[in-house]
């Protein structure tokens, strides 16, 4: 298989205007991924599937990731004048990163037996701009997995043929895989409350739960 840089160059030639970014991966697994933009996502996916040297015909794993707002610390070398002498000093810069939701696609080729090639798509934020283009028209194997992401993370896939909740029931409001998900308080009275349950029972049934 070609390297990720070569594939990126070829995509840029084939899909003009596509904004691509290589996301490095520091773990020993050495699986870097390619971040693609929303407008050209379907065109890029189609190219990856149909190109004769790549032929990623098999979308193995499709999943969501939730990234909260965070402060990233980065070490940067800055030239400073210390006691009249110019020196390189390491400085820690704090950068604020706005949270976003991410969809990750692991692609393989059944024809050429290579892979994985990892595609990423990111939403603009975690609250109202959570739309992503659906790649189910390209790879049908993403159908249930995108439904699952919609269910558990709340990413809305535009162009999905049947976007409903997969695991939770209809009428459920929240998205339980988000990092800031809070369990609903569904406490039920127990005849013999004890320990933690006793504490909660006191909150809910102050009269009934006597120590």
């Amino acid at each position, binding site marked *: 298989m070609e390297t990720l840089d070569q594939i990126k160059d070829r995509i840029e030639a084939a899909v003009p205007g596509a904004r691509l970014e290589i996301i490095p991966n520091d*773990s*020993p697994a050495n*699986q870097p991924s390619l971040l693609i933009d929303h407008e050209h996502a379907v065109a890029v996916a189609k190219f990856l599937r149909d190109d004769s040297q790549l032929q990623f*015909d098999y979308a*193995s794993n499709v999943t969501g990731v939730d990234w909260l707002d965070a402060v990233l610390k980065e070490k940067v070398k800055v030239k400073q004048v210390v006691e009249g002498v110019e020196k390189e000093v390491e400085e820690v810069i704090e950068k604020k990163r706005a949270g976003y939701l991410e969809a990750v696609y692991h692609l393989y080729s*059944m024809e050429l037996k290579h892979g994985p090639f990892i595609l990423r798509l990111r939403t603009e934020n975690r609250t109202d701009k959570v739309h992503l283009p659906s790649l189910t028209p390209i790879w*049908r194997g993403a*159908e249930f997995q995108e439904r699952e992401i919609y269910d558990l993370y709340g990413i809305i896939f535009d162009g999905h043929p049947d976007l409903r909740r*997969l695991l939770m029931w209809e009428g459920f409001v929240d998205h339980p895989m988000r990092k800031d*998900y809070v369990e609903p308080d569904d406490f039920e009275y127990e005849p013999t409350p004890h320990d933690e349950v006793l504490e909660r029972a006191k909150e809910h049934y102050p009269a009934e739960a006597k120590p």
Partner: protein
Amino acid sequence: MISDAPGQMGMTSESASQVPLPEGAGQSNYTVIPKTSAEGTSEGELLEVAMGPQHPSTHGVFRMDVVLDGEHVVKLKPVFGYLHRNHEQIAESTTYLGSMPYTDRLDYLCSMTNNWAYALSVEKLAGLQPPERAEYIRIITAELTRLVNHTCLVGFLLQDMGALGTPLMYAFRERELILDLFEALSGSRMMYNYMRFGGCRVDLSADWIEQAKQVVDGYSRFLDEFEKLLTENEILVSRTQGVGVLTVKLAINASITGPMLRASGVNYDIRKVDKYGIYDRFDFRIPLGDHGDVYDRYMIRVLEMRESVKILNQALRDIPAGPIMDPKAKIRGFRPKAGEAYGRIEGPKGELGFYLISDGSPNPYRYRVRPPSLINLTVLEDMCLGETVADVVIILGSVDIVLGEVDR
């Protein structure tokens, strides 16, 4: 009977119409839909039936909303989630090792391969390498698991077809021998919790290997007996051949994996493609189907069991002595470097993958199971359209699902 004259018999027409029956009352699990042609003329009725969740053929709690025209299926929508427990969230809130026992509960027939897939992904993430003996042990246990799974599947499939009892009991008799082996090894009959990152938990004894050799020797004879009863059985052949055909193109596009994919004739087995573990050292072949129907899916599983027996014979003969844990592996304070990894193995049901993101803390930031059972159900509707209800049951049986993994 309601008369027009008010006051008669103490009942008026108003009071009768005030309490309308709720829609669908008295018809708890089906709805009648009028069927009209393109010109708008009536052509009879369609019936919408909820098959499941409490239905013996669904192998658990799984529902199919089926629309029927007479006895034939016009629409089928699978409904999941009855066994959903948010396995991924649980795993993200515990340590890496802490979710190893939970992986047993995904596909509870194949706990060993679940353990291996998870251990393999964490080893990729943390850069661990299990020693040779551990790799052999993993292959032995994984292939024994494949035997268990495929034997049970054939038994359940025949049960779905109406061969009540006998084939399933034969299958369970053989399964019991392998479960005894696993119990001697790990202390548990089904929930093994056996693999560790960088190796295995306990070593095999020489007695165990002798016992396993006996079981494997006996397995070929059992398969001969099983095949003599089933493979050319007239009822099985007429019920399964040409039923639930899955085309090559659709199978690849819908990410179908495992025996189902190979029954459609696609040569893709991760044991050969990725050569994970030490599978490149063994001599075995990949059986392929030709028609992609239920019969091929049955036959592929029988042939795969014969290949597994071949692998087991080689592995039990060649297993070397040595350590079973990578000395670099840490039990306490296990914190992989920030990064991500996707590891996958050829489970008995298809590609079982684990996708992990580490942020350097003791818990995984993201933990994802790629469930083969769920994704293989993508094409359930395509296979069932136009078939009868009785065939829906065996098509679902031939997909081979375990609800613990579908719903997670």
